[in-house]
């Protein structure tokens, strides 16, 4: 959904924000295209909320510019921006009904009465709150409140909708359904959404994800790329589960498109395309648990195939669709392996059992930082 031509809708250019001695957002630049669903992901305190609040106008950048549709809005008051925000705690007005909350921004915009009425009706239908128009926020369930907050922030048809941890207060089941509803809604309205989250929930909804750490964007990529090709140890470890193995490059076979990295587990052969490295470089190998094949017995490893290791299964964590296995390799390293529980019965492993692990060279990511 990234616009292919023209200037981006939102251009954040070298923005800096400090609170006292702490730099919350550190020289951050980012372009977001019209109609994009962009997620800012990061641990708490990484500056993502501060960035969002600068987009809403609640904070003013100390340096840098924020261009919306070509205009610098860095110093425009919040009520004069064509941007709306859905607050983390929803911030619904407790003294107003559902209808009063949704029409609040429309009344301030000075729309004619019948226009307001039709837009409120449209919003109520959009978020499926029919019959609850006259309720007050504290007579609603958490999920209903979340819908009111969403309807209220959408009612003014902002150019950009900001969502601050929109799913944080919901239970898991509701979170999943709301997540797909949000995505569906955004596609239908063609609006630009920027969502802030500390949770992996962003994976399923966003066109692109910006991972933030210590006030900086460390990687901006579509969800798949972020997961399959993290650009640093930090991103690899933050997004999803992963095995990280330290090592040193000992041989490069350009002809075979392979690199051999020597680790405490002896040689690991990896595909060379991912990173440009030279012999002697210290690198980190990252491999996702579900990319590793687990087989009973250590004969497979004994056969001496590529990236094949023997070890002992130490524990099994049954998660339902998946089981997570922890294996202690004979070299001493611990690796996590995820395996789909494809059959109801049979082919079960038991802890203490000898096993072999193997993975394809293409599935290993080489990280040099």
């Amino acid at each position: 959904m990234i616009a292919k031509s023209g200037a981006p809708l939102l251009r954040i250019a070298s923005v800096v924000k400090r609170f006292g001695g702490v730099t919350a957002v550190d020289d951050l630049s980012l372009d977001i295209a019209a109609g994009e669903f962009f997620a800012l992901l990061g641990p708490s305190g990484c500056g993502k909320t501060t960035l969002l609040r600068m987009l809403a106008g609640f904070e003013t950048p100390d340096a840098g510019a924020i261009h919306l549709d070509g205009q610098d809005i860095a110093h425009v008051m919040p009520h004069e921006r064509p941007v709306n925000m859905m607050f983390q705690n929803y911030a619904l007005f407790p003294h107003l009904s559902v209808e009063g909350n949704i029409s609040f921004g429309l009344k301030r915009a000075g729309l004619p009465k019948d226009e307001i009425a039709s837009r409120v009706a449209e919003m109520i239908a959009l978020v499926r709150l029919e019959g609850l128009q006259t309720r007050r926020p504290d007579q609603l369930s958490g999920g209903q409140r979340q819908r009111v907050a969403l309807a209220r922030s959408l009612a003014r048809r902002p150019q950009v909708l900001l969502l601050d941890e929109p799913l944080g207060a919901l239970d898991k089941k509701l979170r999943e359904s709301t997540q797909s509803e949000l995505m569906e809604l955004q596609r239908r309205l063609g609006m630009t959404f920027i969502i802030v989250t500390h949770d992996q929930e962003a994976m399923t909804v966003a066109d692109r994800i910006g991972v933030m750490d210590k006030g900086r964007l460390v990687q901006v990529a579509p969800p798949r790329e972020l997961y399959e090709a993290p650009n640093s140890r930090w991103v690899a470890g933050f997004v999803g589960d992963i095995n990280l193995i330290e090592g040193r490059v000992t041989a490069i076979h350009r002809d075979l498109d392979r690199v051999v990295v020597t680790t405490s587990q002896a040689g690991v052969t990896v595909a060379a395309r991912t990173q440009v490295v030279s012999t002697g470089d210290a690198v980190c190998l990252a491999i996702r648990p579900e990319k590793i094949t687990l087989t009973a017995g250590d004969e497979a490893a004994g056969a001496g195939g590529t990236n094949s290791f023997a070890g002992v299964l130490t524990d099994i964590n049954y998660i339902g669709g998946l089981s997570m296995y922890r294996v202690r390799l004979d070299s001493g390293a611990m690796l996590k392996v995820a395996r789909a529980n494809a059959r109801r019965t049979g082919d079960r492993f038991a802890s203490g059992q000898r096993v072999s692990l193997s993975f394809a060279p293409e599935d290993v990511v080489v990280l040099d930082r």
Partner: protein
Amino acid sequence: MSGRRIFTRPARLAAIAPYLWMALFFLVPFGFVLKIALSQTAIAQPPYVPVFDLTAGWSAFKTALSALSFDNFKLLASDDLYILSYLRSLVVALVSTAILLAIGYPAAYGMSRLPQRWQPVAMMLVIVPFWTSFLIRIYSWINVLQHDGLLNKTLLALGIIDKPLAWLATDSAMYLGIVYSYFPFMILPLYATLSKLDDTLLEAAADLGCSRLKAFWLVTFPLSLPGVGAGVLLCFIPIVGEFVIPDLLAGSDRMMIGQTLWLEFFTNKDWPVASAIAVVLLVVLLLPLLVYEKLQRRHLEARG
């Protein structure tokens, strides 16, 4: 005994304790006052008739009962003195409460916007004067307001006036005293509601197109109304019955109902009329309480 009993015995005692308290210290004394209000004044000890003597038997009790009358209440309705006193009390209470709200609201709002660490300091500044006796503080005002008091001296020294003004024994002095004395009762409930207000609501209002002033009127003010109600009641009701401040600071030409009551009780020794005044005052004060109660209940119902 049965599973339907929801309170244990101590819990049930705790639940009826407030009612016991009300019955013992409000209903029973009120019954005495009402009985005296229905009696006639007499030169006797106690200074009214009839007196119920429970040892005299049933017929004597019935005679005493038939001697009760509403004469005192008829007197209150027929004499301008009482009606004007009631009216003046209500007007003074209304005007004072309006002034208190006009000063107290901005003050409480300002306090709630102070940096967190300064708020307890501001709170202390409001409360500390109340550690001094109420009477001493009112007498101090007499000192400040009198002919050669601090106020006149200061105004003379500044050249604002060229001869001393009469402050004491005026309505201005009385209003000053009332506003000064009741200020905390207005500011504390207001501050309590305003400081609890969620700041993100103001951000939401700004996000939805409100300037700061608009956000105040559309969000802060309506959400502070319970505090306004509590502050107004806490001031209005005791001010209607106020006796000391008008007696010490206002002129003696017009009286508030508390002063009239005092006069009837102590100067005229007319306990029945004084009691009737008190009963009517209570009824008059119940009205705003009932209105507030109704509004409060509607508020609670709306919240589910």
